[in-house]
């Protein structure tokens, strides 16, 4: 029923004001029509059951039927053509009906006078706000006309009242319209803002979608495995390479906590602690590797920060280096075997030559002893080269470790002299050494490796110095560091070559013009050993005057109270 009524009164038009007026008109017409129908039934009933003047009965009947037909016609006009025309016709019809609704005396100056107020007020609502004045004028005309027709004075107060009412109606209707207009403007602005915002949001979502799609495509296509963790260490995403590399479905990772992931049975036990320490301490060891499902993977991790420098989590990147690791292992095994197999026969040559020199099998003349000496020296040189190769291979494989133990500094220098004094004096060079008084007698270090550093540096200095001296000094740097300084009076190193002197298999002269033997591993090994000891190497060289190598090492004394410090 409600829907039915709604359908009857509804109007479809674009102008909201017009729609409102026409809708109100429809409601009024529906009400009027209902009243007319009730009136019609009442008249018919009265006509049947009571004696009514037939002329009056006919007039009333025709009047009501006329009103009903008029309303139906106006309804059609309102629905199909024009709201304004329909409203005007309806109001005129209403005024006309009211003009005949009572005696002229009552209408002009009596009980029915008030009914003319209805079209005046209604017109402001359904026709136009100022139309109340039109109907005040029409009603005044009718009231005046009726008064004149019955010879009575015109009811001026009624006419003034009509116009006052018209004024009030006009004002209220106008303020209502203004208020509605403002509301509509606000609504429109609001709609515009909402539309703008919605469009902006849609555009930004689209941009993000495109960006995310591009990032995803990049991640999907790289061969390295990438897992992204949020700030709570839960895996947010993993790329397809992870699946093939770690042999675990991607779904398994998503949402899993980092600690849960490193508990996976395919991750080697020893790798778990390493991986965990790497993330917890945010460190990035060089050449860091883990074993997962029998594969060797190099791992790097990076914390992720947004524009506000807030930590967003971290990313772990895996690379399959199984093949490289195998090759490295083979290489180091090969070098170890070769070195061992080379050293044994060299040891035999050395031994037999020594036996000659020592005249085990009978007396030897000077020339024979000298020859035996040369065999010994060359064999020792060859053994030194093999040791260098072995050290290099071990360092490349990351197997060379530093064994810390108390070292007596004077012993280091004694050993150095016992090995190289002869080489120096053979070339007519002085090999001198000193220890800063302030240094402790003993400190913690790897005696064998420190000896190796000293021998390599001094050997090198002797090799490239033709006259003068090679000076070794163990010095105090600051309260946390000490150092080894080797200064020669040799030919010096050209500045352009300084950056390369620590490269493996390199000599300043280059391969084609080398006049000095050796693999060019000596300084490279020194540098790597010093790095392993967390130290630093510096070199200063002046062409024609000499070179100074300075090794600076962390000072660790076996006694925290430094009871072993020398008294200056």
């Amino acid at each position, binding site marked *: 029923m409600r829907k039915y009524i709604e359908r009857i009164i509804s109007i479809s038009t674009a102008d909201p004001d017009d729609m409102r007026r026409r809708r109100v008109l429809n409601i009024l017409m529906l009400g009027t029509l209902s009243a007319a129908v009730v009136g019609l039934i009442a008249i018919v009933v009265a006509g049947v059951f009571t004696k009514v003047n037939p002329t009056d009965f006919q007039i009333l009947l025709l009047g009501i039927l006329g009103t009903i037909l008029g309303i139906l016609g106006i309804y059609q006009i309102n629905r199909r053509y024009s709201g304004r025309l329909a409203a005007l016709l309806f109001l005129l019809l209403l005024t006309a009906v009211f003009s005949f609704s009572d005696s002229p005396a009552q209408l002009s100056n009596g009980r029915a006078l008030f009914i003319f107020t209805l079209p005046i007020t209604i017109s402001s609502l359904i026709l136009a706000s100022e139309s109340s004045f039109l109907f005040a004028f029409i009603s005044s005309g009718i009231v005046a006309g009726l008064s004149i027709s019955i010879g009575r004075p015109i009811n001026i107060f009624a006419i003034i009242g009509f116009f006052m009412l018209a004024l009030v109606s006009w004002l209220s209707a106008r303020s209502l319209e203004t208020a509605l207009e403002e509301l509509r403007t606000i609504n429109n602005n609001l709609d515009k803002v909402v539309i703008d915002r919605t469009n902006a949001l849609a555009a930004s979502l689209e941009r993000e979608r495109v960006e995310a799609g591009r990032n995803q495509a990049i991640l999907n296509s790289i061969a390295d495995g990438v897992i992204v963790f949020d700030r709570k260490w839960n895996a947010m995403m993993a790329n397809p390479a992870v699946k093939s590399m770690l042999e675990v479905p991607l779904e398994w990772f998503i949402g899993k906590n980092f600690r849960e992931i490193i508990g996976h049975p395919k991750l080697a036990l020893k790798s778990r602690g390493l991986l965990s320490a790497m993330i917890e301490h945010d460190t990035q060891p060089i050449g860091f590797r883990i074993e997962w499902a029998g594969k060797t993977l190099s791992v790097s991790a990076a914390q992720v920060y947004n524009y506000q420098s807030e930590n967003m989590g971290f990313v772990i990147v895996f690379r399959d280096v199984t093949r490289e690791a195998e090759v490295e292992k083979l290489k180091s095994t090969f070098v170890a075997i070769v070195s061992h197999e080379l050293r044994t026969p060299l040891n*035999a040559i*050395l031994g037999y030559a020594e*036996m000659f020199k020592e005249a*085990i099998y009978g007396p030897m003349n000077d020339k024979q002893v000298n020859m035996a000496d040369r065999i010994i020296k060359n064999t020792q040189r060859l053994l030194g080269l093999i040791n260098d190769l072995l050290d290099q291979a071990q360092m490349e494989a990351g197997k060379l470790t530093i064994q810390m133990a108390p070292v007596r500094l004077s012993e280091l220098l004694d050993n150095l002299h016992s090995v190289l004094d002869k080489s120096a004096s053979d070339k007519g060079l002085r090999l001198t050494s000193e220890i800063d008084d302030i240094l402790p007698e003993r400190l913690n270090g790897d005696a*064998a490796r420190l000896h190796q550093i000293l021998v390599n540096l001094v050997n090198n200095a002797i090799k490239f110095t033709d006259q003068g001296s090679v000076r070794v000094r163990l010095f105090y740097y600051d309260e946390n560091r000490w150092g080894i300084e080797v200064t020669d009076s040799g030919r010096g190193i050209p500045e352009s070559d300084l950056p390369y002197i620590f490269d493996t298999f390199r000599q300043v002269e280059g391969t084609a013009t080398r006049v000095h033997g050796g693999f060019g591993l000596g300084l490279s090994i020194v540098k790597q050993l010093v790095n392993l000891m967390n130290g630093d190497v510096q070199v200063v060289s002046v062409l024609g005057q000499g070179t100074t190598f300075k090794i600076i090492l962390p000072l660790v004394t076996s006694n925290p109270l430094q009871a072993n410090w020398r008294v200056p």
Partner: protein
Amino acid sequence: MNELALIIEDDEDLADIFAEALRGVGFEVERVLDGRVAQERLKGGRIPFIILLDMHLPHVSGGDLLTIIKQDERFMETMIIITTADARMGDMYREQADFVLIKPISFVQLRDLTARLKPKQ
């Protein structure tokens, strides 16, 4: 009778040189070139004053032989000198031997060392 030095070394040349060095200072020398043979030898026979033990041997390793020697009370007084080319392995056995010599081992070095160890007649 001179003290006995038992040389367990698979490289014949090195065994020769070591033998010559030890003989030079007055030891009687017995050479074994194989781990398994050495294992048999250690079961009986004369107790050596010095055992020169190579770690890298065929059939039975120097490490296993060292364990056997250390468990046998007869060798309580015997000096053990380990010879190896592998410095790392040398470090591993340093506690269980009297001396560890890293190859290359000089004839003179070995001769001088064993001369110091030999009891004065």
